[in-house]
Each structure stands twice: as structure tokens, then as C-alpha cells.
């Protein structure tokens, strides 16, 4: 393989670096209009009346639309999950709320105008009268008997529960040498893509075609959802994904504005564009994470875990059509991660409140599972007086026990967890650290080392979901001139997977890299596929490309063999040249073989093959089990990449401020197709992890009003907070993909969560600190230090 494994720079670099990318907001159409949304200022209220007269009176306003019109003319928004198939409660929601609102920012009306300023100005003049109703502001209140209900029809505020059991936890605790218990909290935060959400639709009444441009990760599912919600045929919709300025899961469908824009374009017969503002994106663009996890752990005096119980209580916000709530399921599903615990029980309670609904965010609950397990392992280490790394090594699933079935039924494909941990400890000089720590201490500096262990299941496939499926498609087309066009159902949100796809295609066909052109993100052109999420682009899309390429290669080998006058199994192809094995001087060019197939189909060489050099194939990932009754288990994730990280921080005990001095990681996603882009992906993940651990926080007050609606208050880490990341790869191949690849896109976001807690604790051993709440803001860290100091004196 010449290209797979090569650090190829991204194919999109030149265009994007020049500022010549085309995003939804760049697209201009003749006679285009702009939409602005009227949003609820209340977290829970009934809509009494809407008076749009003042808005309609403004010159330039084309239309004001309310929930009543939407309910009369559109179907409810199609759900990303089949909630019934998941055993979860579903919700009927519309592109605009017809009767009541359930979180601040929920859309109740919209204005279409000739320009965006007029649309916004008019939207502010739409007078909505509300009658407020009781608010469910947190999970504790939501679970109390007699609590107000977010969804009155549900009878309670619980969206889904699960109870995973393995072995005999009760006996394990009864027999335990030692036990410990604690509760950890993962706060609410989200991704902050540079490009906010943006949609645009245009309808041609003569061809009855709707063209829809979206900053989305999933063009084909969006088409299905639009068709279902609008009640029109899929074939009358073309969804185009132009460049996307970051997705992180948050640009998976379906938000209220997505079908709304399509509806308005159709009813007005004019193009309608919506570009979200930053404050809108922070308010309603999908939240994530907020979970409280309690645990009991039983272990031997030398730190081997014998029993474990965990309870996950997630605040998923108001229920919606989005796939976000699934993160709570996946969190519980992923516990206890990398560890072999024979007796365990994991309970899940997904609770709805009057906050912004969750949408998928990189990590998808797995990061919180990893955070929990890291805190548990650090707890066991502290209680037994054992080393943190030693305790992890003692409890890892051994490398020779894969595939390994976890507590939830999840089937872990392969892994070598001791390998990544031992290597990262070498990278950071774990053995030598105590001496360095002591030396720093003598200089009056406090440094600490933290470790974090991630397990990041990928390739999500959920039963009967239009969005989340364990397959994808690709077309490989060799043109008469020998150049190659690859069309994929997977898409790139800006992370460069088209480059990895081209590398796979080049090797699979045996052509030079620059002969490959990759086209993604157009439902009229590309084969059906589910787009980008769950780190699936290379494992699903890449595998589909490889299978399709093999069809073409096999056909061309036959033709080339005839041309070379040898048998097909005596021919090989590399870098655009078919040659006889062992006789490289005897060759025909790839382009000449292609030309022969297209131009000489009745000639000697091509007579016996079917004309054309095009194949569309689908890859179905193995290791997914949806039929417990026949397959004995339910397992939604086929691919289990893992990572060990270690960081050294310096803490200023007087202020609670810390700096990351060193950050090392060893990642294992099986075969790495492009180490440069894999590492770039990981850098982004690390940064989102550090942001989540220390800086980013969506804060609500008791009335469920969001207080962090700008980047001044929602503080993302900047270049100034970024340490230098040192990354290595271990390659433990997946037995379930043709190349041995596993997902990489979501890795890196978990390690820092507990890693930072652990590092600060380690820097101040005399204070016996224990962090269980995130984020670790300077104020929070100072409070913990201050409290510990008070206790000591």
C-alpha cells in the first residue's frame, strides 16, 4: 500500500486557506429572501395569541408564519431515532410551536423579508402573548413525585431507563475486601463550530423540485426527513451540502428551522435563507453532557475491582426529534469501558427538563463514561494506596480476551489497553516524574501529572433509525481517460475525510493519488449514505470505497491480462500501471486499459467483460447485533478505538489557575489511513476536552434562562491555552473492517476531563483533593484548595 498510512495534506487546504470555500451563507440566489425566528423567552409556557400586524406592516416583510399555519400544513418533525424501537418515549414537535413552548429559544414564529436586517427587525415586533406554566429546572425536581411535566402525556419526566447487569453484583459487594462510593458530575456544554447552523431552500414550481443547501452532516437523511415532514416525495428534493465549518455532531438533523426553511421556500416560491446567529446557536443549537453519575465500587486490597454499580442520571433538556438524548444511553452503554469487571450493574435514567434539547456532540456520552471510570480508578488507587497506572493495568480487559462482551452487551472488537498506557507513561517519563515534582516544589512550583483512559465506541447503528445506521455506500467510477471519480454517502464537516477516501481509492485501484477526485454531499449525485457522525467516515465510507474499487480493479485486471497476454492472476497494478508479476517491464498503462474498456468493447481484450467501469457498493459493518432474540445480545457499536493520555500541569494554589505544561497521548484506531489528519483530528479533540474540563460551561439560572449566550461568557480555550500535543499511534486492527480501521473522529475529548482533575490532585498531594465536579474553573479549583487548607489548620 502506497498511500494508506501516508501523511497526505488535506485536499481542501488550498481552497479553504484562500478563503474560497463556499458555505451556505455564501450562496446567493436570484430573488432570495431571509428568515428570522421569533423565539420563546420562557422555558415553559402556553401560547395565548400571536399578533403579527406590526411586523407585517414593515416594508420589505414578505411573510409572517406561526405554529398554527405549520401544524395545519406540515407533519411533525421526523425523529432521528425510532424512539419506539429504542424503548424510549417520543415527542410530537413541529417546525414552529403551535400551542406551547418547552425551553427558552424554542421557535414560535418566523418572518421572511427581503433582507436579513428587516427580517430580524420585524421578528422583534411579533407580539406573542404567553401564559407561563411551571418549570422543571433540573433532574432532582423532575423526578420528585408531583413534579410538573415537561410532556404532560408522558406521566413522568423520564425519557428512557436501562438496567444493565452482569454477574452477581450483590454478592461481589457482600464479599468485598474494600468498597468506596462517590458521585461525579459532568456539566452542560457543547461544541462551538465556527460556522453556525445555516439552511437555504429554493423551489421551482415548474419542475416541482426543491433544492436545499444545508450546513449539515447528513444530506441523505435530511432529504428523508424533509420529505416526511413536508409530506412530499423524496425524489423531488435535492439536498446539497456545501463546505461545512465544523459539525461535531451538532449539525445532525432535525432542528426546527430545517423543515421551516423548506416549507417557506415552497409556499412562497422564492428562495429562503436562514443563517443562525451565535447567540441563537448557543441558545438552541443543541446542548450536551449534563449528567450526574453515582457509583459504588468493590475491590481487593491490591486494587482489583470485583464489583461495580453505577447510576447515570442525565438532564437531556426538552425532548425533541434530535438524536441528542441518545448520548445518555451511550454513556450507560459504554460503562465500565476498558475494564474487566465480572459483577456490575449500570442503571440509566434519562430525564427531561425545560432546557435546550441535547444534540449529538463529539464524544456522544462515551466521554462521560470514560470520565466516570477514570475517577473510579483514581478513587480505588487512593483507597488502596496503589499507583494510578498500576490499578488501571490490573483491571484492563486483557488484550487476548477480545472480542469482549461488556456489561451492556456491547461487543468490544479488539484492543491493547496496556500497550497505549505503558507507552504514554514512557512518553511523559512517569517514572521520573516524582523527582521532577520534588525539584519543582523546591522552586516553589506545584506541578502534577494526570492520566486519562478513553474508550470511544464508533460506527453507531441503532435499530430502525434513518440517521444512525451501520452501513454506507460509495461509487467508484473510472473515466475513459483513466482518471477516477469517487462519490460517497459519507460527508466531510471540514475534517478532511475526503483525503483519506482518496488515499484508500488510490491504493485499492492502483492509481496515483492525484488521479482521484472525491465528490460528497449531493443527494442527486452521490449514492445513498448516512453522512458523517460517530467517526464512521473512514470505517464505513472508506470500506465501501475499497469494496467498489475492488470490483473495478478485478475487471480491469482481466482486460489488462488479455492485453498482456497472460492470465489475470499473473497481473498486478500499482500507480497507474498493470504489469505481469515478476516482469515489470511488461506493462500496460491504467489509462489504456480504461480506454480499451470504453472504446473497444467488442475488441479482443474487453469482449468478455461487461462494459463500463463503475461500481456502487455498500459496506455493512459487522459486530452489530440488533436481534437479542436470535443473536443473544444487543450491541450498537462495532468499532472500539481507545486512547491513553497523560498531562503535566502547573497549578498556582493561590489563584486556582493552571497551565498545561505537557500533554501526551497514544491513540489506537487500528490502521491509520492518514496519520497527519488523524493527529489533526485528535488535536481538536484534546482542545474540546480541555475546554470541557476547564473552560466551557452552559449555565442556566433557576428559571431555565441561559446565561452564557456569547463567547464572552461561554469561554472556549484559545491558542493561548493550547499546550503542545505529543501524539503517537498504536495499531490494533479491527477484525471487522477490510483495512483494520477503527473510528478516530471523536477520540481525544475524554482524557482531559478526569486527567485534569487527577493532575491538580497530584500537584497538591498534601491537600488530599478530590475533584468530582466540572468545569475546573480557577474559582472552583481555588475553592477546593481553600477548603482543604482550612481543614488542615
Amino acid at each position, binding site marked *: 500500500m502506497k498511500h494508506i498510512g501516508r501523511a497526505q495534506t488535506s485536499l481542501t487546504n488550498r481552497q479553504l486557506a484562500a478563503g474560497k470555500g463556499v458555505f451556505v451563507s455564501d450562496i446567493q440566489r436570484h430573488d432570495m429572501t431571509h428568515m428570522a425566528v421569533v423565539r420563546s423567552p420562557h422555558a415553559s409556557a402556553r401560547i395565548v395569541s400571536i399578533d403579527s400586524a406590526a411586523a407585517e406592516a414593515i416594508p420589505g416583510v414578505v411573510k409572517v408564519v406561526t405554529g398554527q399555519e405549520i401544524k395545519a400544513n406540515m407533519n411533525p418533525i421526523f425523529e432521528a431515532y425510532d424512539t419506539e424501537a429504542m424503548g424510549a418515549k417520543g415527542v410530537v414537535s413541529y417546525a414552529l410551536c403551535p400551542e406551547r413552548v418547552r425551553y427558552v429559544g424554542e421557535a414560535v414564529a418566523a418572518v421572511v423579508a427581503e433582507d436579513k436586517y428587516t427580517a430580524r427587525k420585524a421578528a422583534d415586533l411579533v407580539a406573542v402573548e404567553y401564559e407561563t406554566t411551571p418549570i422543571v429546572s433540573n433532574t432532582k425536581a423532575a423526578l420528585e413525585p408531583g413534579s410538573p411535566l415537561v410532556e404532560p402525556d408522558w406521566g413522568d419526566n423520564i425519557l428512557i431507563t436501562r438496567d444493565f447487569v452482569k454477574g452477581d453484583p450483590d454478592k461481589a459487594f457482600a464479599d468485598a475486601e474494600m468498597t468506596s462510593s462517590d458521585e461525579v458530575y459532568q456539566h452542560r456544554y457543547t461544541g462551538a463550530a465556527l460556522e453556525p447552523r445555516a439552511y437555504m431552500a429554493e423551489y421551482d414550481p415548474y419542475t416541482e423540485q426543491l433544492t436545499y443547501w444545508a450546513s449539515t452532516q447528513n444530506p441523505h437523511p435530511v432529504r428523508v426527513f424533509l420529505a416526511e415532514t413536508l409530506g412530499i416525495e423524496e425524489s423531488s428534493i435535492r439536498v446539497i451540502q456545501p463546505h461545512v465549518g465544523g459539525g461535531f455532531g451538532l449539525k445532525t438533523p432535525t432542528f426546527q428551522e430545517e423543515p421551516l426553511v423548506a416549507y417557506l421556500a415552497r409556499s412562497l416560491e422564492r428562495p429562503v435563507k436562514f443563517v443562525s446567529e451565535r447567540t441563537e446557536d448557543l441558545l438552541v443549537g443543541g446542548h450536551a453532557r449534563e449528567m450526574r453519575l453515582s457509583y459504588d465500587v468493590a475491590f481487593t486490597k491490591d486494587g482489583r475491582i470485583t464489583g461495580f454499580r453505577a447510576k447515570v442520571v442525565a438532564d437531556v433538556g426538552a425532548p425533541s426529534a434530535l438524536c441528542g438524548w441518545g448520548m445518555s444511553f451511550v454513556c450507560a452503554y459504554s460503562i465500565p469501558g476498558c475494564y474487566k469487571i465480572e459483577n456490575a450493574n449500570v442503571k440509566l435514567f434519562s430525564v427531561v427538563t425545560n432546557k435546550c434539547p441535547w444534540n449529538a456532540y463529539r464524544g456522544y456520552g462515551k466521554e462521560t463514561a470514560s470520565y466516570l471510570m477514570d475517577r473510579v480508578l483514581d478513587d480505588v488507587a487512593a483507597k488502596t494506596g496503589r499507583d494510578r497506572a498500576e490499578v488501571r493495568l490490573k483491571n484492563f480487559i486483557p488484550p487476548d480476551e477480545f472480542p469482549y462482551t461488556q456489561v451492556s452487551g456491547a461487543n468490544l472488537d479488539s484492543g491493547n489497553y496496556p500497550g497505549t498506557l505503558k507507552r504514554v507513561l514512557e512518553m511523559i517519563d512517569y517514572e521520573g516524574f516524582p523527582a521532577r515534582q520534588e525539584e519543582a516544589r523546591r522552586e516553589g512550583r506545584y506541578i502534577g501529572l494526570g492520566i486519562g483512559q478513553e474508550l470511544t465506541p464508533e460506527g453507531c447503528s441503532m435499530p430502525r433509525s434513518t440517521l444512525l445506521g451501520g452501513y454506507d455506500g460509495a461509487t467508484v467510477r473510472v473515466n475513459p481517460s483513466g482518471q477516477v471519480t469517487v462519490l460517497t454517502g459519507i460527508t466531510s464537516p471540514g475534517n478532511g475525510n475526503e483525503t483519506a477516501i482518496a488515499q484508500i481509492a488510490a491504493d485499492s485501484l492502483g492509481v496515483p493519488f492525484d488521479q482521484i477526485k472525491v465528490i460528497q454531499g449531493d443527494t442527486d449525485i452521490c449514492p445513498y449514505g448516512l453522512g458523517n457522525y460517530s467517526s464512521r467516515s473512514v470505517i464505513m465510507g472508506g470500506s465501501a470505497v475499497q469494496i467498489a474499487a475492488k470490483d473495478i480493479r478485478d475487471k480491469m485486471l482481466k482486460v489488462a491480462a488479455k492485453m498482456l497476454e497472460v492470465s489475470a492472476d499473473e497481473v498486478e497494478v500499482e500507480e497507474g500501471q498493470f504489469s505481469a508479476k515478476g516482469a515489470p517491464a511488461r506493462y500496460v498503462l491504467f489509462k489504456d486499459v480504461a480506454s480499451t474498456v470504453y472504446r473497444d468493447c467488442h475488441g479482443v481484450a474487453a469482449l468478455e467483460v461487461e462494459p463500463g467501469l463503475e461500481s456502487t457498493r455498500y459496506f455493512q459493518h459487522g459486530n452489530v447485533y440488533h436481534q437479542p432474540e436470535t443473536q443473544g445480545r444487543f450491541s450498537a457499536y462495532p468499532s472500539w478505538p481507545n486512547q491513553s493520555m497523560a498531562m503535566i500541569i502547573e497549578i498556582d494554589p493561590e489563584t486556582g489557575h493552571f497551565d498545561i505544561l505537557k500533554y501526551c497521548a497514544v491513540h489506537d484506531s487500528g490502521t491509520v489511513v492518514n496519520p497527519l489528519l488523524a493527529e489533526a483530528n485528535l488535536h481538536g479533540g484534546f482542545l474540546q476536552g480541555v475546554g470541557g474540563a476547564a473552560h466551557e460551561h452552559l449555565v442556566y439560572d433557576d428559571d431555565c434562562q441561559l446565561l452564557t449566550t456569547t463567547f464572552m461568557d461561554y469561554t472556549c480555550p*484559545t491558542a493561548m491555552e493550547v499546550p503542545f500535543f505529543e501524539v503517537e499511534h498504536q495499531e490494533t486492527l479491527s477484525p471487522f473492517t477490510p483495512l483494520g480501521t477503527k473510528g478516530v473522529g471523536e477520540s481525544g475529548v475524554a482524557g482531559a476531563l478526569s486527567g485534569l482533575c487527577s493532575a491538580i490532585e497530584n500537584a497538591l498531594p498534601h491537600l488530599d483533593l478530590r475533584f468530582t465536579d466540572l468545569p475546573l474553573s480557577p474559582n472552583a479549583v481555588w475553592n477546593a484548595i481553600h477548603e482543604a487548607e482550612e481543614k488542615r489548620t
Partner: protein
Amino acid sequence: MISQEFDFEAPSALPEALALLARHGDDATLLSGGMSLMPMTTLGLVQPGMIISLNHIAELDYVREDGNELRIGALTRHADVAADPLIGAHAALLAEAASLIGDVQVRNRGTIGGSIAHADPAANYLPAMLALGARLRLQSEAGERSVEAKDFVKGIMTTAIETGEMLTEIAIPKLAAGTGCSYQRLVRVEGNFAIVIAAAITEPGRKAARVGLGNVAPGPVLVDVSGHLGNGLDDAALAAIGDAAFDAAAEAASDLAGDANYRREMARVFARRAVQSATDAADAG
């Protein structure tokens, strides 16, 4: 998005601007770099009826010496304040305060006059202005007056500037040779507003020292710590300086970046560090 319409004027000379201000009074809002006004307008927090841009008034963009003072035009951009050789030589504390504002784009655009007149409790200049003993020149069509920096802020984003007046110049006494200064701030992420600011000056021979504190009260607070310098800067002196700052920060408020108690404690830490560091700087010559 700014969806409300407003009238816009961009005079090219100061008298013209002052005349517009006199005519439109409180209905007019002055625009210089726009680093505060634009976001606030975008968020709908202010809805100006008229915006008068000062960006074409070249005569307000200057740094010059005038005897024992430096005079800085209100339209001087932060990047220019940070890089100006006169300011570097005679009021290094101010250069440092400017260099830590926002990010490169903000410093290239934002102006010293705009920031001071906006009087955000967390903004960088005012604590330094207090420590430096700056005077602010306020001009109107009717005349002009000078206000001490310490008398300038009346409350959160409320200043001594009256209707029809404009801040046009900042006058700063040149620091004597041997003066120590240090600008210290605690931030959650770089580029954001500070949680606490301490800007310290120690006079030659440690005859006097003062600390301007930021974001621990509705306005900047000046703490004179000269009385604690008697026996050099020993632990007791530093503790007393910290206590003085803690007491001076009694009005500290809580927000998302830090609670009131944390702010007061950080005032203690940063005042102490700033004085120590200013003294060290002076000793190092």
C-alpha cells in the same frame, strides 16, 4: 445582527463632532473602535438613535510629550498605545495594560478613549489610570474641563462625562526614573475580560506605592499602600498590602467568571504580587 436603523455621522474635525453632540445630546452615541458599542448594539443592549463616528478625526490620534506629561489622543488605538516609544519610556504600565486587551484584532481597532469612556468594570485601562494619576480631558461645544481618573467613574459603565461632552485626551504624569510598575491580571481565558486586575506603582526609593484594582467594584479602586513600605517588603508588609486590597474590594460582585469572595481574595493576591513585582522591577533598574 444590528436590525435597528439609526442616523450616522462621521465628522472629520473635532468642532464638528462637538457641534453634533451638542445638537443631538443623549440621543447620540459616540463610535470609535466599536469594540464595545458594536457587540452591545448587536445584542440589542443599546439602541442608539444616532451614531457619531470619530474615526475620521485624525487630530484625536496622537501621543506627545508636554513637559512632565504625556498627552494621548482619545482615538489612539490600543496597539499604538502598546507600541508607542514615549509611553514605553514614561508610562510602561499603560503600555502593558494596552498589550493585554482582547486580541490582535481588538487592539488594532479599539481606542483608549473608547475603552475609558465605556468604563466597563473589567476593562484594562482604568486601574492603570488610577495608579498613574491620569487626568481626563472632557470637551464640549461650550468649553472643556479636566477630571482626575479617580473621580471619573461614577458607577457601572457610568462616568463623569455629561451630556454634550466627549473624552478627547488622557494626560499622564511621566514616571520618574526608578519608578517600579507592574500590571497583573487573572483571566479565565486569554482575550477575555479579567476576573481581577491589579496595577501597581512604587515610587523611587519606595517612598510611596499604590495599586489600582479592577473588576472588584463598580469602578476601579485606588489603594494607597505607601504606609506598608516602612520596613521594606517583608511578609508582614505584603500581607498588609493584601489586606488593604481585600478591604478595598468590599463591593466585589459575583458573576460567571468568579464569585464575590473569590474576587476579594484575588484582589489580595494580585495586589501583593503587583507591588512585589513593581518593587522587583524598580530594583532591577
